[in-house]
């Protein structure tokens, strides 16, 4: 069976449709989609923190109520998942930072590895400060 083509028209080309599941085709695509989804959980953690700060501001009763709510199984499950996504978010974006920023110190390009290590050092310092603030 041949397809009718008029004398001067170009042969018709074939365009492959893109599957809705394209992001499952490669591990790197999946990681990208998970990285993008992680922002939802970051937003959740920010909201959680803001609500906690407000309840602390409203006094001991309000804080106790918040802690009861936060202790429920479903909230704990969401927070565990959110923590995993926050970790993924941090690791993936730290790794990508040197690509977005070409840092130069005294006219020399900062190696990508040094930039990423620098980010973890800053993260560690901030973490230690927050721990000190909470536990002192």
């Amino acid at each position, binding site marked *: 069976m*041949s*397809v009718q083509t008029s004398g001067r028209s170009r042969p018709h*080309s*074939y*365009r*492959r449709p893109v599957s809705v599941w*394209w*992001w499952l085709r490669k591990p790197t695509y999946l990681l990208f989609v998970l990285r993008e989804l992680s922002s939802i959980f970051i937003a959740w953690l920010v909201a959680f923190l803001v609500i906690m700060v407000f309840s602390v501001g409203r006094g001991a009763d309000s804080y106790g109520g918040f802690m009861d709510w936060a202790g429920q199984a479903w909230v704990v499950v969401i927070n565990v998942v959110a923590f995993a996504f926050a970790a993924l978010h941090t690791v993936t974006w730290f790794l990508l930072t040197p690509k*977005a920023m070409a840092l130069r110190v005294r*006219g020399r390009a900062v190696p990508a590895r040094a930039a990423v290590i620098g980010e973890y050092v800053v993260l560690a310092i901030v973490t230690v400060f927050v721990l000190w603030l909470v536990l002192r």
Partner: protein
Amino acid sequence: MTLQAAAREAEESITLEVTRYEPDGDTEPHTQSYEVPLRKDWTVLDGLNYVKNSLDPSLSYRWSCRMGVCGSCGMNVGGRPSLSCGTFLSDFAPGPVRVEPLSNFPVIRDLVVDITDFLEKLPTVKPWIIRDDGDVDVHAGEFLQTPAELDAYSQFSSCINCMLCYSACPVYGLDPDFTGPAAIALAERYNLDSRDQGARERLDVLIEREGLWGCTFVGECTRVCPKHVDPASAIQRYKLKAAQESVRAVLLPRGA
């Protein structure tokens, strides 16, 4: 049996599963398998040439330099956009090796894709040196550059327009209007050139939604680039500059 035939018999072989599409007869592509010799120094392109020369002269594909310079022989090998001249059959042993046309482009025939879209987009980002000081007297001498100035853009100048990055980019697959990795990386190459003064003109084109901001930083373009151009990095750095430019335009409205 001659000695030669006996040697051929003893030789290991590998199966190529090649996508075929005949525009005048087929409504969609199908796969055809070929047995080709598995030799240590044979690339996928050598395998295809063997098919063309010895098994099936109707197979169509593009190639030229067979040494990773011309950028013609890009294909999906084992699902990954690759230069078929730089991808060894032995890496896929015992096979089979899936050989498909590049994704995200219309297929003209077999492994040949239509890259007209890219060729139309490329000049819109003005990938050449732009001077705003009028006609330059070529006899006045060269524009000298220091090694550091050369270093600033040389990585992005290695692009061979092989289209592997477009094939790897899911954004381009979903939205064919996206300017795409290679074109933006080439624009950045000229922005970073100390002799160039055209960054403003290029930004006017690339600041559109289908330009820089179409990119969601999947990063697959960089992973498949055979010349280590790193288009993902070029685009993110470009975005940073565009954002700074926008902030400056708000804070300093009089074009300062």
